[in-house]
C-alpha cells in the first residue's frame, strides 16, 4: 500500500502541469498572441508587439523565430496565431491562409569595405555568380579570385535573388554557402574578396556596429538614395503576417496595428521600408 500511495503526489503534479500549456485553442478570451516565423521579421514584430502591449494592458505578445516556412506551418497547424513570412504568399498557401504585408525589405549585395569596386550592373552580378567572371580585375582592377557567397536552398532571400536575375540555383557557382544573414555578414567581413547578398536590414545593422563591409548599389536602381535612409532596392520583398481564414479578434487587431502608420518609425528604425499609407 505504501508504494502505491507514493505515486499519488507525482500524479497530482503531472495533472497540474498538464493544464499549464498555453494552447492557442483555449476557449477563454484571448490575452496571449503567439507569433512564429521569419528570423528577418522577428526583431521588428517584437518591437511592434511591445508597443501593442502598452496600448492593450493585459495582452502578451510572444514572438519566436524559425524561418518563414515554420511561420506557415505553425499558422496552419494552430501552434501560432500569426505567422511571419518574409516573402509574398505562394498561390498554394493563399488557398487556406491570409497574408497582410506590413513592410518591405530590400536585399543588397555586400563586399568587404576594402574592396575598391564601386557599383555593379546586373549583367556583372550574373557573371560573378555563374562563373563567367572569376577575378575582380574586370570590375575593380584587383587581380584576386572572387569568393562567391550564396544562400542555402529554400531561403526566401535566395528565391528572390534567383528570380530577380533570372537564374536557377544549379547555374550558380558558389564558393561558400551560408545560412542566415548574420553568418553571411561575418563571412564577408572576414574575407576581402568575397561578395554576398543579405537583407538590407541586417546589413545596415552591421554597418552601424562598424563591421567592415560595404553595400554595393546596383546601377539600375532608379531612385537615388535619400539622405539618412537606406537606398530603395529593386531587389525587395514584402514582409508578411499570415493567419488562417478566421483569425481571433486579437490577432486581427494586432495585424491592423502592425500595418498602420503608428509603427512606421519602428519599421524605419529596423531599416525596413514602410508601406505607403
Amino acid at each position, binding site marked *: 500500500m505504501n508504494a502505491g500511495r507514493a505515486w499519488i503526489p507525482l500524479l497530482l503534479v503531472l495533472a497540474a502541469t498538464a493544464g499549464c500549456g498555453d494552447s492557442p485553442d483555449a476557449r477563454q478570451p484571448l490575452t496571449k498572441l503567439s507569433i512564429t516565423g521569419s528570423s528577418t521579421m522577428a526583431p521588428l514584430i517584437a518591437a511592434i508587439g511591445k508597443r501593442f502591449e502598452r496600448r492593450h494592458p493585459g495582452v502578451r505578445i510572444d514572438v519566436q523565430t524559425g524561418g518563414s516556412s515554420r511561420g506557415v506551418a505553425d499558422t496552419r497547424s494552430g501552434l501560432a496565431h500569426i505567422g511571419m513570412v518574409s516573402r509574398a504568399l505562394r498561390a498554394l498557401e493563399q488557398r487556406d491562409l491570409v497574408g497582410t504585408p506590413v513592410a518591405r525589405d530590400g536585399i543588397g549585395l555586400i563586399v568587404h569595405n576594402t574592396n575598391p569596386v564601386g557599383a555593379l550592373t546586373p549583367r556583372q552580378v550574373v557573371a560573378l555568380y555563374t562563373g563567367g567572371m572569376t577575378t575582380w580585375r574586370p570590375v575593380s582592377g584587383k587581380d584576386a579570385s572572387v569568393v562567391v557567397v550564396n544562400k542555402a536552398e529554400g531561403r526566401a532571400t535566395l528565391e528572390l535573388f534567383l528570380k530577380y536575375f533570372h537564374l536557377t540555383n544549379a547555374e550558380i557557382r558558389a*564558393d561558400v554557402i551560408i545560412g542566415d544573414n548574420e553568418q553571411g555578414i561575418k563571412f564577408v567581413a572576414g574575407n576581402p574578396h568575397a561578395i554576398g547578398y543579405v537583407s538590407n536590414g541586417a546589413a545596415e545593422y552591421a554597418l552601424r556596429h562598424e563591421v567592415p563591409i560595404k553595400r554595393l548599389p546596383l546601377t539600375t536602381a532608379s531612385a537615388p538614395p535619400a539622405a539618412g535612409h537606406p537606398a530603395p532596392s529593386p531587389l525587395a520583398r514584402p514582409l508578411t503576417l499570415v493567419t488562417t481564414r478566421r483569425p481571433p479578434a486579437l490577432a486581427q487587431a494586432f495585424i491592423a496595428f502592425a500595418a498602420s502608420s503608428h509603427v512606421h518609425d519602428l519599421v524605419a528604425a529596423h531599416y525596413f521600408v514602410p508601406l505607403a499609407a
Partner: protein
Amino acid sequence: MYTTWWPPITLSHSRRDQLLRALLWSCASVAGLMLVCIVAFLILESAPALSHPGWRRFFTDAAWHPTEDAYALWPMLAGTLLSTGGAVLLAAPLGIGTAVFCQWYAPAWLAVPCRRLIELLAGIPSVVFGFWGLVALVPLINQWQPPGASLLAGICILTMMILPTTSLLAQASLAQADPDALRAAAALGFGRWGTLRRVVLPSCAAGLLTAGLLAASRALGETMAVLMVCGNVVQLPSSLFDPVRTLTANMALEIPYAAGRHRSVLFVSGLLLLLLVISLVGSATWVRRALRHV
C-alpha cells in the same frame, strides 16, 4: 573477474529495495526508449523520401538541388567522411603523443597542469571553435588559397575539438597498464622507450583504438563549427582547399526552410549519419573485444 548475475546485489524483499528497483528499471528503460523513439521517428520521417525518389537516387544523382528534383547525398557523405577521417588522422598521433608525454615523460609539476589544460580544452563549446575558425583560420587560409572556407579548415577545427577526447581517453587507457608487467619490464632492464613500445602500447592498443573511434564519432556528429568554416558547397572536393558540405551541416542549413520531399530527404541524411555513428561505436566495441583476447 567474476560475472555478476541478476539480482546483482541483494536478495532482499524489503519494500524499499523493490521500489528502488522499479525506479531504476524505469530510468534505464526511459534511456533505452528514447533511442528507439528517435530511430523510429527518423525512419517514419524518411519513409516518403525512401519510397520516392528512393535510396538509389541519393547515390546516383549528379547534384543536390532538392527544389529542382536532384537529391545527391553522396557528396555530403564524402564530405563527412573526409573531414572526420582527416581530423582523426591528425588528432590520433597528437592525442596519443600528448597522453604518452603526460603519463610517461613529463615531470609531475608539468604533467598535472598539462592534463588540466586538455580537460579545459574539452570543455570549450563547439560554436566557439567555429567562431574562431570563421574569424581567424578561414581568412588565414584565404590569403594562401582562396576561398579559405574549405575541407582543410574543417579538418583543423575538428582536430582541435576531438584532440582532448582522444588524449584523455588515451591517458585513461595508458594509466591502466598492468603494474606487474611494468615491474617485470623494469627488472629485465628495459628503458622507458622499450617498456612503452614492448609492454605498454601493445597492452593498451584496444583502448587507444577505441579512443580514436569514439573521437571519430564525435567528429561525425559535429555541426555548428563545421557549418561555419567548411563553405558548405555540395561537391566532391578535388583538393584540401575546396569547400565541402557535411551531412550535419546540410540538415542544420536547410531544415528550417524545407518542406515536403526536401524535408524528408534531410531526415534520410540524419538516418545515414545515425547508421554511421552506430557502426563506429559497434566497431569500437568489437575492436576492444578482439584485441583483449590477443
